[in-house]
């Protein structure tokens, strides 16, 4: 039986939007927020300009680009909610599945698996290392175990070279996916925890257009198109996310019904 004197837990979504010279993440977060409001009906907090560390640099995407991915661990202290869905602003919420995770998780939960429409993403930090998680989505509650996780991610960020050697990964640049995987492994007693029980869908290639028809998601790329069941997606193409096409896609969804 519910204790009627217990205060209701506050719930909300936290988005990180840290602009770079080439990407207006605040603009992307604005569109993401409209989708969240429409689909999840939760309040949203957007975090901007907090990074205390100089910019990271990402290779392999868009011929290399500045990447402000530091200080994600501060989401725990910055979130005004008891129960939080922490999202990258390039994750488009098109279904309410994450609410189920919020209902069931005790401390925190992350994606273990990620795939594009055509392949499963490699998830190893290195040939003799462990699998990493996908920190694009972190569902957490304000518990001591979740606080330990975020505090440890902060420590890993500050001592990244040490953890890079300890966990045998080769990439030099800081990745939240790795930091959260290491912290999860340690906080959970040196075994990985159970993650979100489905696979995150990521659109890796440049996108021309996204639309929804008959409850299907149609993603048109330069040379191919994918017809997928309607679901939330992680879109890597930041040019598309800043485009008028994307704004129209969000307009169409939010005007439905």
């Amino acid at each position, binding site marked *: 039986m519910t204790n009627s004197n217990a205060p209701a837990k506050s719930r909300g979504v936290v988005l990180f939007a840290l602009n770079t010279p080439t990407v207006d993440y605040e603009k992307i977060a604005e569109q993401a927020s409209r989708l969240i409001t429409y689909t999840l009906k939760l309040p949203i907090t957007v975090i901007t300009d907090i990074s205390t560390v100089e910019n990271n640099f990402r290779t392999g995407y868009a011929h290399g680009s500045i990447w402000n991915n530091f200080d994600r661990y501060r989401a725990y202290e910055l979130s005004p909610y008891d129960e939080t869905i922490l999202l990258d602003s390039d994750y488009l919420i098109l279904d309410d599945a994450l609410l189920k995770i919020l209902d069931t998780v005790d401390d925190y939960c992350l994606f273990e698996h990620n795939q594009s429409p055509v392949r499963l993403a490699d998830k190893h930090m290195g040939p003799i290392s462990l699998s990493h998680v996908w920190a694009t989505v972190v569902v957490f509650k304000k518990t001591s175990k979740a606080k330990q996780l975020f505090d440890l991610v902060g420590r890993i960020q500050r001592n990244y070279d040490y953890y890079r050697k300890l966990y045998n990964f080769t990439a030099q640049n800081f990745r939240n996916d790795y930091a959260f995987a290491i912290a999860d*492994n340690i906080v959970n007693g*040196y*075994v990985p925890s159970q993650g979100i029980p489905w696979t995150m869908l990521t659109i890796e290639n440049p996108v021309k257009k996204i639309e929804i028809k008959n409850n299907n998601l149609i993603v048109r790329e330069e040379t191919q198109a994918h017809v997928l069941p309607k679901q939330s997606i992680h879109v890597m193409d930041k040019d598309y996310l800043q485009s008028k096409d994307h704004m129209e896609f969000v307009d169409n969804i939010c005007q439905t019904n």
Partner: protein
Amino acid sequence: MSNKLAQAGFLTLAQNSDIDYLRLAYAQAMSIKLTMSDAKYAVVVDDSTYSCVTEQHRKVFDYVIPLQYNYAKDDSWKLANEWQVFDLTPFKETIKLESDILFTRSIDHWWTAFRLRDVVMSLGCRDYQGNINISRQYRKLFDDNDLPDTYNGLMYFRYSQFASDFFAKARQIFSNWDYFRDSILINCRDEKPTTDVVYAIAAKILDPDNCMLPQCDFINFTHMKNAINSWPESTPWSELVVSEFDLPMIRINNINQCNPLHYQDKTWITDEILKRFEYELRI
């Protein structure tokens, strides 16, 4: 009069060659005493190894049993004596181990499952992350001959007619290895018989279903051979990844090892590690 003096316990063979198996058995006995304080431990030794047993060893060896017949005097890998464990064990129920296996937690609850059969061999093995092994690199002979995917590294047998038949059959295969290799097995080029192959053949001849418990998939161990862990073969695993001793827990590549750990690389057990065990046991 029966030599089965105790109800249940662990047993290994230690026959020193260029490898000091007695030292590995000592580490194993300490890991068992640390995780299962009531457990009994017996070690079967040949004449030359018997002379190396010290008072320090006897603090954790409840039984030191001399080998009766040595069929492997000239072998560096002395597997030909393995079948004698049925006669030599002081226990009515025995968990027989290869000496390079350590325990990081109690497996007392496994006895209940073992008692469903007279002989139980581990079925399959796991990688260091606890995943069931799918690599067949070391098991081509088993696949070619449709042998059960059993491992003798950790096995159980009870003082019973079926177990007696099993070890008698194993003795027969060891003694007639040339015939089994050349006339029975397909694609077998093993000059000497190995215990895994011999026991798998014995199980297949007698009754494989009576020698394993596929429904109890927790009865196996972590195998640290490189291919099982998807690591390159060129470097010993102990040089590839970090090992941490938080006894009784052992962490490899930052993963706690909850299953019995078949470390396989004999150089991994250093004097420092033995001292850590001795300190934890206050011996």
